[in-house]
């Protein structure tokens, strides 16, 4: 075992966005461990300056290609909060379907394309297509296609939703289309089960590592919270003052990252599928709970590598919940509704949504003409950066006897487990535009 080595991963692969890992070891002691985000800053707050209330969601959707539905919904909720716009029950139901579509899209992409190659010891999903795993990959592709087509149907497009607008939907699916979707969701359940079994067979590739940390997510009394809920922490419990979310997120700038870091009760906290599972697992649909049992996943689980499994559990939940939501929609009778009429006024609004990678917050202030004069967005991945750094600091000494190559892989896997969406690491501060 060499006493001096370095691990430098520049532009970590199979994550969304650009991040670097730096590890320097001298004489067996760690000199430097650093997780840094090197994505070019994109200054989204400047993009919102002077834009009208109905254009904000289209711009903020472009923060991230993977969680564009989540950004759109957080943006709409913030805008509607600021303008006191109420939305219909049908819109509520459809938006929940939209969140599920994205959760499914993003989770299966992460499980199948980004994380699975590590479990199977390959560099990407491509060689798997020419291996004995081809069938598995095609199953994953099938699920991914279903999630994408669900997004097409509800949102009008796979990426960057079109139909989600202030006050409702610019277009809704027909009864026939929803029935077809429901049928396909039901048919996909055995496929999900197969994928779960295959994942279970390679589950021993998931590193056994634990570090106690704080988990933050939305919670609700009525359901497994994704679209609607109150802030909740495993350390400090529920926090109802959603307009004062900053008390929870406390952001700060670090020199190695263009992304901001956050902390609450400890040096760091975690958001995302595992955080939601740890806080709300009782409200999962029974089938999703069964999937969790397969992997012996129980709250509170402190192994960040299990985030990938929590995603699989949520994928199952999203399928069952979508089937149920479609029933509700069809019982009510789906109809074309004009979006709620907006009366332009000044005000501040905050929108909180649970997106695949965790808690997302948009916070806008509008002037009396409905133009944005102040904006702030808190991105899930930003909330996880500090936690990734803390995990690395605890993890490296535990694996210091492995080869640099192995260490590098484990560190990469750790970051990938968080499924970071680094493109999102743009940031808005509270800035008042003149």
């Amino acid at each position: 075992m060499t006493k001096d080595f370095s691990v430098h991963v520049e532009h970590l692969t199979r994550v969304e966005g650009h991040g670097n890992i730096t590890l320097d070891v001298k004489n067996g002691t760690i000199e430097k461990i650093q997780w840094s985000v090197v994505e070019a800053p994109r200054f989204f707050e400047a993009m919102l300056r002077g834009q009208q209330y109905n254009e904000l969601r289209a711009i903020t959707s472009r923060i991230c290609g993977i969680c564009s539905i989540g950004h759109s919904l957080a943006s709409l909720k913030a805008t509607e909060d600021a303008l006191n716009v109420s939305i219909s029950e049908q819109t509520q139901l459809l938006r929940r379907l939209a969140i599920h579509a994205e959760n499914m899209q993003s989770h299966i992409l992460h499980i199948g394309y980004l994380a699975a190659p590590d479990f199977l010891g390959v560099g990407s999903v491509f060689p798997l297509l020419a291996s004995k795993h081809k069938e598995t990959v095609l199953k994953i592709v099938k699920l991914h296609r279903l999630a994408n087509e669900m997004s097409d149907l509800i949102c009008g497009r796979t990426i960057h939703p079109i139909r989600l607008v202030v006050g409702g939907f610019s277009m809704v699916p027909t009864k026939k289309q929803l029935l077809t979707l429901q049928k396909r969701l039901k048919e996909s359940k055995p496929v999900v089960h197969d994928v779960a079994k295959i994942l279970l067979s390679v589950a021993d590739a998931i590193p056994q590592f634990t570090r106690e940390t704080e988990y933050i997510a939305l919670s609700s009394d009525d359901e497994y919270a994704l679209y609607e809920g109150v802030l909740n922490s495993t350390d400090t419990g529920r926090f109802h003052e959603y307009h004062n979310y900053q008390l929870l997120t406390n952001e700060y700038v670090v020199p190695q990252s263009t992304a901001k870091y956050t902390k609450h009760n400890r040096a760091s906290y975690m958001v995302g599928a595992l955080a939601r599972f740890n806080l709300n697992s009782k409200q999962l649909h029974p089938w999703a709970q069964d999937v969790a049992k397969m992997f012996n996943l129980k709250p509170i689980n402190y192994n960040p590598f299990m985030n990938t499994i929590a995603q699989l559990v949520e994928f199952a939940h999203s399928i069952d919940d979508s089937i149920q939501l479609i029933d509700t929609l069809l019982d009510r009778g789906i109809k074309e509704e004009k979006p709620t009429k907006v009366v332009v006024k000044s005000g501040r609004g905050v929108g909180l949504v649970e997106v695949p990678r965790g808690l997302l917050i948009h916070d806008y202030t509008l002037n009396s003409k409905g133009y944005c004069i102040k904006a702030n967005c808190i991105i899930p991945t930003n909330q996880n950066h500090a936690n990734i750094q803390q995990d690395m600091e605890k993890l490296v000494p535990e694996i210091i006897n492995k080869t640099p190559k192995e260490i590098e892989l484990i560190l990469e896997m750790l970051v990938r487990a968080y499924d970071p969406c680094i493109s999102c690491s743009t940031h808005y501060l509270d800035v008042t535009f003149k």
Partner: protein
Amino acid sequence: MSTKPRVAVFDFADCEGCELQIANLEEEILDLLEIVDIVSFREVMKEHSDEYDIAIVEGSIMRPMDEKRLKYIRSKAKILVALGACATIGGVNKIRNQWMPEEVMKDVYGNAKVKGNELFNVNKTKAVNEVVPVDYYIHGCPIDRDEFKHVITALALGKKPEIPTYPVCVECKKNENVCLFERGMYCLGPITRAGCKAICPTNGSPCEGCRGLVKKAETECVWEVLERYNLSYEDIRRRCTMYNYGRAECGAQ
């Protein structure tokens, strides 16, 4: 030795949605792998090679360090394709060009000490062709998968891809949509490059101009339309800022 063109995919400042659109080809990825060799694609693969024929570049160029990387990519590639609005026209990243970089920097990072840090050394946003020559464009935010397929198959066959030069209205009419102007909205369809199958108007939302303008917004005919529908030029100007800040019509790109 395979004769398949070697393709590398790179990303700069963007949301990576256009690369994701490639992943979203689903089963057709198998076909794609049949006709090209993907040698680098950071978003989905670990392997990387600097030997490629076609570079597909996504994202806008923000910093000197990014320009350097892009020029290196250009030196390696026989053909360079700009992928998606951020790369083809600067996209939403150009909205901030209304202000000086220092101003924007202060807005976002406040008084944090970032001076002298290369990561934070930001110029005005540039589209790819403002830094290096671009051979072909795949427009859109996000790109349209069929158009991506069209361009890739054309390049694999040694053809010149055919990208529409006419406005979105053409495709919108073929889709038999109720015109959004009739519905009291304003839409950039009449002056935006088609090729997206008029996806936004078809889903009931106005065109935002993400494929670039085929006509300047400051033309007599646009004024005429605005006047007829009681719209202000301010509305159109703001809407053009979303994707086309500081750009005249894109002409023959």
